[in-house]
């Protein structure tokens, strides 16, 4: 009955601690910079060549690299996959490097899913409990006629809500800047998605052609889901460590480890059970070759869900049971 009021409280605290303002500024600054830099880079890279020619040239370069024999095995895997993917685009007469405002939006989902959005999720979640301990306000919060589980639930809902708003806002900002750089139309254009490797080669049976807007919604859905899972994990660290700096540091270290581990130790397969390895869900969905064998959208989403549920269970248990001596 009073639950919406509790969530309102938490949102008020986010707003008054300038969390939203910081996130909004980060998104606008970063996406604006990317859009600007990318449109400049493209002009120089592609010139006004026909895309068929440009794509064939690129394939030739990759083939040379493969023949060269000096490519490390993981790169070889990626190169074969990329060759197949480009070939497939040529056959279907779809420009793999096409760009438009909507395509920029779509690209942002992939680019932001493994670092930027999780980072922003951490901004919201990692001090949502620890700050109350640091300020001493936890003593008031937990001596009101509201059970501890409901207090934490209201914080969880606020964090999930804030992350949702962040992902939505990120998409909107990307569309605004993408539109400025490349024009606003093109939502209905077909895109090829679902590239999946079957053994060494690309599995053509899995490739589908769908409308860009549908593809975008799916990709953002996946990025959103990954960010929510990061949010719950950050909430857990906030509950456990009771220090914002420690919670944020832990989560950042995990994220950074996640981006470098697959590169440093590509043969260590167990890392596919880590949550960070599974964050680039949009990548696994649209079909860049997975860094580790056996990573798929379904596997990634399931693994993240398990992490999130375990984190929530632990967070609630600890928060409800532990004495507050701060």
């Amino acid at each position, binding site marked *: 009955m009073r639950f919406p009021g509790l969530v309102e409280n938490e949102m008020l605290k986010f707003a008054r601690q300038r969390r939203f303002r910081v996130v909004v500024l980060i998104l606008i600054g970063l996406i604006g910079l990317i859009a600007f830099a990318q449109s400049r880079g493209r002009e120089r890279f592609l010139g006004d060549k026909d895309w068929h020619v440009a794509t064939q040239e690129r394939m030739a370069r990759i083939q040379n690299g493969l023949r060269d024999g000096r490519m490390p095995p993981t790169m070889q895997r990626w190169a074969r996959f990329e060759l197949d993917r480009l070939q497939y685009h040529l056959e279907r007469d779809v420009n793999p490097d096409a760009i438009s405002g909507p395509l920029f939006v779509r690209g942002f989902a992939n680019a932001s899913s493994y670092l930027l959005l999780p980072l922003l999720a951490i901004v919201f979640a990692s001090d949502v409990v620890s700050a109350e301990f640091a300020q001493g306000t936890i003593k*008031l919060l937990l*001596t009101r006629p509201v059970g501890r589980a409901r207090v934490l639930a209201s914080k969880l809902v606020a964090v999930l809500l804030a992350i949702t708003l962040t992902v939505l806002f990120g998409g909107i900002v990307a569309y605004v800047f993408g539109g400025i750089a490349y024009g606003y139309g093109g939502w209905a254009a077909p895109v090829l998605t679902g590239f999946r490797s079957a053994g060494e080669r690309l599995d053509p049976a899995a490739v589908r052609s769908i409308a860009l807007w549908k593809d975008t919604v799916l990709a953002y859905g996946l990025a959103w889901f990954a960010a929510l899972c990061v949010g719950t994990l950050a909430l857990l660290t906030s509950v456990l460590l009771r220090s914002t700096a420690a919670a944020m540091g832990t989560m950042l270290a995990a994220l950074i480890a996640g981006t470098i581990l697959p590169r440093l130790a590509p043969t260590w397969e167990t890392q596919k059970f880590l949550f960070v390895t599974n964050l680039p869900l949009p990548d696994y969905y649209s079909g860049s070759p997975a860094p580790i064998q056996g990573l798929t959208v379904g596997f990634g989403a399931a693994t993240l869900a398990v992490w999130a549920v375990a984190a929530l269970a632990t967070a609630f248990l600890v928060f409800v049971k532990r004495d507050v001596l701060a």
Partner: protein
Amino acid sequence: MSTAAVLSGSAGDIVLSAEHLTKRFGRREAVADVSFDVRAGEVFGFLGPNGAGKTTTIRMLVGLARPDRGRVRIRGLDLARDFEEAMGHVGCIVEAPDLYKYLTGRENLLHFSRMLAAGAAERIPELARLVVLSERLDDKVSTYSLGMRQRLGIAQALLGNPDILILDEPANGLDPAGIREIRQLVRHLASDRGIAVFVSSHLLSEVEQTCDRVAIIHRGRTLASGPVRELVDRVASDRLRLTARPARRAVEVLKPFGAVEIAGEGAGTDEEAAIDARIPKAKVPDALRALTAAGVDVFAVERSLASLEEVFLEVTGGETV
């Protein structure tokens, strides 16, 4: 004792009762078997030196910490079992009046009113007036003085129309004027509104001036409890303070009646001086007659009330606060 009878007769129902509260941290017993009742309309003092277990006890009273043994009942409700309903009767400040510094006073009160039953927000203007914060209510708490924060904390605690108010060291860090304001507010809430008020303090004078009943805690155990007057009487019953001239003669005359010492300046002179004497009540009339007969001028005779400090020294066996 008559004072006790009067006090317990005038006090209302038991609002809060602590039953054999025990809390261990590792092998150290921070609180051991602490029991007391707090009644409607009274100010109950919880007195002890820093580290005696006061805050740990308060944490158990308000559900922040779980007792290893014992139970807290609020209006008869078991705190551990019916937390939400029981805490609906409680307003509290634990340790410091920590509120959200980046919010205004009003936003803080609105924040906590959303955690209460409907109607709490309507009380904000009235409570702001009560704690004299109306004019600063829309300023950020970070700009408040400690006294203002303490008062805002009390307004927050009163939002839910509590039956019991639990204040942890409300005088801490306040200047004398601030302490007096809080004391008057506490007395008003208990006497005029019938709220039970539980106040912890390490300041004996504070408890003596504010509280009706007191429990003294030391090293996690309650050493004594009862009406403040009764505890004071225990020590004070044979204490007299006289102002007489000549002082030297007065001391000579009083010596046979009990222990005498000259309190102020002028010891051993023939001037006027204050004299502390411990003379049993029954012998006081004889002592005064003897003084008059000896030609000593007596300007004042008071029964000096022992401070709680003396009570405390007595019950703890000489350890200071």
